[in-house]
Each structure stands twice: as C-alpha cells, then as structure tokens.
C-alpha cells in the first residue's frame, strides 16, 4: 500500500513542480515548507487512520482525521493560497 501511496505522492509533487515551472510560478521557501508540512501531516493522518482501524480503534481513527487531517488540509490550502494570491498580485 505504501509503495502505491509513495508513487502517487511522488508523481503528484513532480507533476506540480513541472506544471508550476511551465507557468513560471516561483514559490517562496516558506510556502514550500508549509506545503511540505501539510503533505507530511496528510500522510501521517492516512497511516494512523488505517493503522487505528487495523487496531480495532475506530474512535481513534476518526480522531486522527480531525486532529491531524484537518490541520493537514489547512496547511496545504494555506500554501496554495499564498502562491496563488502572490501570482495574482504580480
């Protein structure tokens, strides 16, 4: 499973980088850092959600979606918006 997730994540990041370069979109270091943290948090959420279900701890699984999943999405959204708004302003 993690091989496939890794392939998807790697392909997505590569695709994003190629797409941004084709549009001459430059990202600041803090935008990249926030995005990377968001991605790590998302992967952490997925692993712990699936792992908690495997441990028969369904409440813990749902809590991970809330406690780490939501912040992960927020971080990714913040990173996206920082880049998008800077591009619009330019």
């Amino acid at each position, binding site marked *: 499973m993690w091989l496939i997730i890794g392939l998807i994540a790697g392909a997505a990041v590569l695709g994003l980088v190629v797409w941004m370069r084709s549009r001459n979109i430059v990202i600041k270091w803090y935008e990249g850092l926030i995005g990377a943290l968001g991605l790590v948090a998302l992967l952490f959420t997925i*692993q712990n959600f699936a792992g908690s279900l*495997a*441990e*028969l*701890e369904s409440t*813990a699984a749902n809590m*991970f979606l809330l406690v780490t999943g939501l912040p992960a999405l927020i971080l990714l959204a913040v990173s996206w918006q920082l880049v998008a708004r800077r591009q619009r302003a330019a």
Partner: protein
Amino acid sequence: MGKFHSNISRRDFMKGIGLAGAGLGAAAATAPVFHDLDELASSPSGLTKQPWWVKTVDEPTTEVDWNVIERFAQTGQGYISSPDFGQHYENIKQAILSNEDGNTLRDHALFVGGEWAMFGWPDELAQSFVTHPNVSGAAYVQDATTAKAMGVPRWEGTPEENLRMMRSIISYYGGADGGAVELTDKTRKLILSADYYGKPYVFEDVDEAYETDAKYVIPNKCRWIINFHVLQNGAAGKVLQSALAYSAVYMAYAHADLICRRLQEFLHVLGYQGLGKNPGAIIGYANLAGLGEQGRHMIEISPEHGSLIREPAMLITDLPLSPTKPINFGAHKFCYSCGKCAENCPGGAIPTATDPSWEVAGAWNQAGTRCWFNDRAKCQPFGWKYENAGGCDNCQVVCPFSSLDKASIHQVVKATISNTSIFNSFFFAMDGFMDYGGFGHTAEDWWNRDLSKYPYDTTLGR
C-alpha cells in the same frame, strides 16, 4: 476570482463526471450487498481474503472421478515400511558426531522439543519442575535421544552463544524475546522459598535436580535464569471483562506451559537442566533481565508488547548464559502520571496514589521493592470470575503501552516517553481523548475483524 484557464472544455468536463458517476453506479450494482452479519459470514467473501490473482472456481483443479472413489480405511497404512528405530537413532548419533549441517545436537534438540505433545501430554508433566519427573514410572522416549543416552558430547558454547541460541529457540517455539539473570546471593532471593502448597525449594550440592514429596531440590550449579515473554492476544482482550478477553488470558497460560515444556526438552537433549515452571518472582526476574519495567498494575510492561504479556516465564538452568541488563524506557515513570489501570480495575485492587510505596498490601506481596502493591484479595474475585461471567484483564488491555502498534503514533509517543517525562500527562490525556484501550468494543468487532491483519492467533499473541 482570478483568471483561470484550463485545457478541458465544459463539454469534456461534464462528460467525465458522467462517466465517473456511471462507473460508480456499476461498481455498486455488482458489489455484494449484505443485509446482516449472518449473510456476510456465510458468503464467500466472509472467508479468508485471497490475493487478487486467486480465482474462485466450482471444481478443484485436480480431476476427480466420484464413481471410482470409495471410503478409505487407514488400517495398516501407518508404517508401510518396517521402521528400524535402532538405525534411526544410530543415524542421528552419526550425524551429530560428524557435525552434519542441520543435524547437529542442537538441531536434534530443537526437533525433540518441537514435537512435544504430538502424541499426547502426560498429566504429571504439566508445569513440571524437572523435565521428566517420572512420577508414574513411565519411560519417556525423549530420554533415549539425549546427548547422554546417545553417547555424544553435550552442547558446549560460550555464555553469549548460549543466550543467542536460547533466544532463537524461544522465538521458534512460540515465545518472544529472551533474557538471562545470574543467580547470585542477591538474585537468589527472588527464587520462591515454597510453592502454593508449602513444598519448599532448596538449594543443594547435587548434580541433578529432583523432586520428592517433601521438597524441590535445585542444584547449586544451576546458576542462571532464562526468561522470556509469553504474549497474550490484545485484540480479543479489548472486549473488557468478557469471555473473549478471558480466553486470551487462559490461551496464553496454555501456551506458556507448552513453550516451557518444549524448552525443558530442548535443554534435556542438549545435556542441561531446565527447572520450571516459574519457581521464582517472574516479574522481578523480568525486570532484572531487561525484558521490561514493572508497572503500576505490578505486572510487566515491555517496550514492544506493552502489558499484553501473560507472563515473563522462566526456567532455572545450568546452561551458562550471558546476563542481560535491566532497561529503562520511561514506562515505570509514566505510571506516576497515568493510573489508567487503577481507574479501570473493577475491584479497586490497584493503588491510585501518585507515588509507589515500600509498604505491602497483604501476605501475597513480597516486601523489598518500591512499587504500587496491588490488593490481590480485591483482584481475584474479578480475575477468577467469581463476580462476573467473563473474567478480567482490564489492567493489561487499557494500559497505554498495550497498543497493537499498527498506527505509527505509538512509536512516536513511546520514543518521547523514553527520553523525557514532561509530556507524560499530555500523553495520558490524549490516550483518553482518543479512546484507546478497549472501551466501546463489542464481540462482533472481534468476530468480524479483518483476518488479513490478524491472519492467525499464534502463541505470539497477535
């Protein structure tokens, strides 16, 4: 909204959504629909999950002619060639003497231990002190296959090699981990002075251990303890105070007897003694050997298995072993802030005080350690099913260290606890917030668990 340009036309976008929707609908229509759990349990997909490349068929791949097949009598089909056991033992002996790879003395000992109970289990050998007490006067076929009986040199290894060998065989026979303690004037104090019925354990200058009606005799030359974990199933235990939870306890006890017996046979063939079962303070020796730390519940907490350990079983042996050192991974310290086992003890047998004490709770405790002495009189009615139908292993299951370790967060928390105690209260609170440890689980959850995650409940307790 800013300008946004896409290469996909509106027509193509709507077409894509339509196709995706149709695909989902088709998948839902063809997927099996279960109206209740009986239907699920009886369907083919309720059975063991096969890899995707396995096809289910109506007929086996071996052709069968049912017109030819008749019921078969096994009579006389056991040994179809006349076995010569004398030659068999001679073959074993010669292989040992020539150091044949895979047929050395310890390989042979592994076999003898592993086949234990294949042909039944004599009652007198249950939890026996010596390997073959010969209480009934019976002759044990295993006695013919020892190094001594075959006239081959017994196993000789360095203490480090011996410990490595014992860890390997413990793992093979169904135990986990493995540690060793040398019996010194101090550590001998953890050997029992008498068993449950008052029969004393005494040390004497004799060559072989023996047991009489009056005493158990441990040779002074038996100077080492070998101990290891017998694990207890954690998934079944999550249904607190149930027959499922209690089955995990007693299945583990049965495994413990089997594993100890196998080890005794193994040592016996090698030319050494293994005195069991558990003639000492098993938690104390486990702490000394570095198998774990003692928790508030007075049982062992292991870094890997948490409190899901039925017992850190032990044998006394004369096989020289390299002692293993105690460990510290923050578990005992965590107990100061936690107390979850005490909160969930139905009998109130576990102290709730923050700090441990030197003061024992009753005659069932051995004085001389600073811990949270439990009140066994309050535990036993629940642990031994007087007060409820299902028995109790709450303290083991609710312990925050008893996670089944499939979610990565547990390793992060354990690593942090091991290095600093400043987050202990936070972790205890989070454990409750995340509802870990057995609350709200039903038996149906366990009966319908994903078997690919729990393919078989072996003596490894998973």
